[in-house]
């Protein structure tokens, strides 16, 4: 089992020009994530959700505190923490298969093995036979599936998902949520997902982390069991309409709203 942990992590952006003040984005956030967990980070704009993910990915370094993987401080990006981007970040000059095989190519895996592994992963994400398709001809949902397959090709211990379903239409999004849960369960990775949607957070998370905005602070860290129900076979629509789901939805909504009010009063 692996562990990704943020210890008292702060992030300050330097002032844009001489007159502007420096901006505190994250304020002493402590949270951790183990393989086998699905942690969803939710919060309003300006709560530093994406910064948190960038720190985990190693795209940025914290100004204060440490981000550690199994006790070792993270220095830069690494294949054990694969990222899925909001606007998929697939390479249009490669077909779907070569996009999936990209992490393997970087590692110097031979052509034949690369193809075989990529096709397996395309099967896993429900895109059997789509290997030769040009990625810019695929729909948004299919592109995200390719993006997820590509992340899995890196054989990561953690999947970092930056609002991967944010740009999809509502129907596709619902389908992709269940799909994401299935893939995560099969992969045995730890998942860190950023989202704006409370509904999505409740459905996917084993733990929900609520961040308050300006600056981003840890507001709540809640365990959630709806994902387990869905994995056990209960349809998402049934889970959504259950009283427990609605109650928790209200609770989290209240949490996010009250936090905002407090912040506004303070400011």
């Amino acid at each position, binding site marked *: 089992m692996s562990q990704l942990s943020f210890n008292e992590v702060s992030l300050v952006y330097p002032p844009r020009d001489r007159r502007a003040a420096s901006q505190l984005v994250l304020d002493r956030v402590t949270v951790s994530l183990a393989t086998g967990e699905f942690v969803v980070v939710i919060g309003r704009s300006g709560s530093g959700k994406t910064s948190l993910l960038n720190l985990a990915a190693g*795209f940025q370094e914290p100004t204060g505190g440490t981000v550690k993987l199994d006790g070792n401080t993270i220095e830069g990006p690494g294949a054990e923490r694969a990222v899925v981007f909001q606007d998929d970040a697939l390479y249009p000059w490669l077909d779907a298969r070569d996009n999936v095989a990209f*992490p393997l190519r*970087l590692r110097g895996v031979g052509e034949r093995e690369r193809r075989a592994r990529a096709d397996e992963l395309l099967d896993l994400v429900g895109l059997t036979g789509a290997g030769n398709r040009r990625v810019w001809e695929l729909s948004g949902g299919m592109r995200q599936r390719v993006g997820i397959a*590509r992340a899995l090709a*890196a054989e990561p211990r953690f999947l970092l998902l930056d609002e991967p379903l944010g740009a999809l239409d509502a129907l596709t999004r619902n389908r992709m949520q269940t799909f994401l849960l299935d893939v995560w369960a099969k992969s045995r990775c730890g998942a860190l997902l950023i989202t704006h949607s409370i509904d999505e957070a409740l459905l996917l998370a084993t733990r929900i982390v609520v961040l308050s905005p300006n600056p981003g602070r840890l507001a709540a860290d809640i365990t959630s069991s709806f994902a387990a129900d869905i994995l056990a076979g209960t349809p998402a629509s049934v889970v959504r309409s259950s009283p427990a789901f609605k109650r928790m939805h209200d609770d989290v909504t209240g949490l996010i709203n009250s936090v905002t009010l407090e912040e506004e009063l303070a400011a």
Partner: protein
Amino acid sequence: MTLTTDQEETYNSDANATEPARAPDRTRPVPIFLISLLTVVGLVASWAAATSAELVSPLFLPSPAAVALSLLHLVSVGFVDSTLLEHVQASLGRVLGGLAVSVVIGVPAGLAIGTSRIGRGVLDPIVEFLRPLPPLAYLPLIIIWFGIGEASKVTVIALSMLPSIIISTASGVRCVPKDHINAARAFGATKGQVTLHVVLPSALPSILTGTRIALGAGWSTLVAAELVAATRGLGFMIQSAAQFLVTDVVIAGIAVIALIAILLEIAARALERWLAPWASAS
């Protein structure tokens, strides 16, 4: 103007005159391509009329038929010791040679400008010095350095192509989406791998566009350079024909130069669609 703005009255009168059987409403405006074609036909027709009415001396303006004949003659017999094909080959060879040299130098230079501060600091003034200079201004210097052989012509063409290739490469490199680079880094790519597998392919559409523009610039520079110093090539052919007042060869040569310029443009666009289909698709 009135034809394309779809004004009913003006268009109806036209349509009634040419096609009385057709319903007057809901007719489509005349396609621009047809208008252009009619313009060309009209120009050639008035050229033929002017020459057949002997308004101008054939010494200044030979008839279209005479030019067509001389074109045939150029293909079969040639002019100043070479057939048309040999002149075209000489010119095309120089342009493609210049293109090869400027791509080999220009793409890495653009990459350096786009990715490193030092590269930008060093190369920017050189590019900005070269870019606004008319190639014919430094042609005499190049001839002093390299003589009147092929080397000087290829050098001048390469120099005239370099700025647009460097600038388009640099701007393509600067426009690589941040997520594309971050994705590769997240999968453990080294700096070299990011450049090779992400930055270069991502900048390719921009590089190809720059190359197409450079090809146009190089072609016009070449013809001008051949006017000054050459023993073969389209520019040289026109220049010698002008010295003997063989006006039909001059005009035929101009037509061939224009035709090749158009063909180069079409070929470059086809290359863009083939190598970077995603750029035009999305």
